């Protein structure tokens, strides 16, 4: 099995030294009126370039911009859409990280690009392909509220879901137009509501229709994906990105083969402990042998923003160690 190494999505935007604290410092200075929005954008650029460089140095084949500009995975996208205002804080799944909840008060409309400029910047700074990450319409809708008595006419969850789907389909088209070749749709909520996979399938079909030749990945994490396995195989995406840390049965399912390419989240993106490289290499070997897959990618189980920066860097470099062990064992 040919193995590539990829980042999942986010990368810490703060570390222990002064350079790594630039963005935090600049945002705090802007709040005090000492810096401007342009200063913050420059700090974000600097951090994004640093994140891309560290991923390349770690030996990754596919990188992201680390999502270092994102306030959180929900409001960064929803907050740029028409018809949405950003409200109070809520916990992001089972992490100790909080997002601001979108409150939808009118028809959801994409009135400007969401992450196209972010992609273009990262691609300019990277010698490797850059994967674009978008939080998916289903998760955005699940984590939004609909404000009553507004002009959206009600309609509940489905109206929000359809609105986000239409907006993100436009964004996918714009990203492809801008040169993106790899787009990942994050749907962590799907693991919590597996019965909704047909709805998610229809939404992904709308996105896939606008993706052109780009590779579309669906990432499911922060929950057990094994009960979803058969449904995932039918979804209109090219790659499935899976979190193995919640799914004791997932390894067995994967070994039975997959109609989709797989991104294997075998390295825990939520804990500092480094996996036994030999044990993960053996898992890869078993997957390769039993599934007959010709190629797969090895990734962290989720974004790395939940780790301190030094540990996130170690995890990425550990991917390369695991690959080396794997290649040694199958040689």
């Amino acid at each position, binding site marked *: 099995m040919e193995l590539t190494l990829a980042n999942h999505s986010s990368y810490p935007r*703060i570390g222990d030294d002064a350079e790594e604290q630039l963005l*935090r410092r600049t945002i705090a200075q802007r709040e005090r009126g000492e810096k401007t929005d342009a200063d913050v954008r420059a700090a974000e650029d600097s951090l994004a370039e640093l994140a891309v460089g560290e991923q390349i140095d770690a030996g990754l084949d596919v990188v992201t911009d680390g999502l270092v500009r994102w306030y959180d995975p929900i409001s960064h996208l929803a907050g740029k859409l028409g018809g949405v205002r950003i409200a*109070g*804080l809520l916990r992001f799944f089972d992490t100790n990280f909080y997002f601001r909840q979108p409150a939808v008060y009118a028809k959801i409309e994409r009135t400007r690009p969401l992450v196209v400029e972010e992609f273009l910047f990262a691609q300019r700074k990277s010698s490797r392909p850059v994967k674009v990450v978008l939080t998916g319409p289903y998760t955005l809708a699940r984590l939004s509220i609909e404000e009553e008595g507004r002009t959206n006419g009600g309609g509940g969850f489905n109206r929000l879901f359809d609105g986000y789907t239409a907006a993100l389909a436009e964004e996918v088209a714009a990203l492809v137009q801008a040169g993106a070749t790899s787009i990942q749709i994050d749907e962590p909520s799907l693991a919590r509501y597996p019965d909704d996979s047909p709805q998610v399938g229809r939404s992904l079909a709308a996105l896939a229709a606008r993706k052109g030749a780009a590779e579309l990945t669906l990432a499911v994490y922060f929950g057990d994906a094994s009960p979803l396995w058969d449904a995932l195989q039918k979804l209109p995406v090219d790659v499935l990105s899976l979190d193995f840390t919640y799914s004791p049965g997932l390894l067995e399912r994967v070994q039975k083969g997959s109609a989709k390419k797989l991104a294997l989240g075998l390295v825990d993106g939520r804990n500092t402990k480094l996996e036994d490289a030999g044990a993960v290499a053996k898992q890869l070997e078993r997957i390769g042998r039993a599934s007959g897959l010709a190629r797969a990618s090895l990734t962290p189980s989720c974004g790395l923003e939940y780790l*301190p920066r030094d540990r996130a860097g170690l995890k990425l470099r550990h991917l390369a160690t695991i690959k080396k062990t794997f290649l040694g064992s199958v040689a």
Partner: protein
Amino acid sequence: MSREKLRQLKIDLPLFPTTSVGSFPKPDYLLKARAEFAKHQITGQELEEVERQATEFWIRKQEELGVDVLVDGEMYRGDMVAYFAEKLPGFEEGGLVRSYGNRYYHKPIITGKVGWRGPVTVEWWKYTQGLTSRPVKGMLTGPYTLMDWSFNEHYPDRRATCLALAGVVRKEVEALLQAGAKIIQIDEPASSVRPEELPLMVEAMHAVTDGLGAYFISHLCYGAFETIYPGMLDLPVDNFDMEFSNSGLDMLDLFRKHRYTKDISFGVVDVHTHLVEEESVVAERLRRGLEVLPKEAVWVDPDCGLKTRTVDEAIGKMRALVSVAKAFRNQPAVHSA
């Protein structure tokens, strides 16, 4: 109803007792001292003197405002988990991770067997209680949250980690009781992260509180409580301190569907906005709460710790809630469930 327990403990509180969750903003002089200490420009003893000065400031301020059950304001703490991790064997300090927006904290790493070498918070509690005749809460972070908000490189799983930490927290509770504390708050803001683990959290809290004679409060906030309610009522504490304002009072709908059976510290001001609420806004929140909750069960406080607000904002929010609570006490016909 836990009024009887309060009476047994000889704690005399009015209707709608006022309190705060735990932290207050650190005054500028303390922030300066902490920065100087970090640069090794002052000693630990010099920093502690400033921390005591700031603690006394907040005690006097709470008394002046008319708060009924006081807190020390956590002038000597940074983060609610990291503080304990720094004091307990088995932990190492981890690097910074993001909490939200531009806020970060040092997330500890469990690298060995956790233990308790001696009291962590007791001297601060004794110092603070010595400044006032009003009751001061002992304040601890619960075992489930200590587990969930730490990285684990030692224990085989979350259950083993949580129960080991429960033994440590119980020792600290016992030490606070021995020192004279009667109201002890054990914060579990991670409580709803994995609903399937609610039985573990309940088991751990039993390990902490069973057989101990105190009025126990547990602070929970910013979670998907619909996933653990009403099961969370099995937690062996007397009072849940909960955020209501930031979430638009949505927990009240759950209480309508399934009766709430404990005392409650009802969050009537939002700690995530710089805006100091008008008293009319605070009163409306409390009034809506009393549509569902019996008035004898309701304490009044902010949603969460006020440490992220300015000193003036924190005082303004506390002033508003105390004023509203007093006004409600004096309304003989306060509507109540």
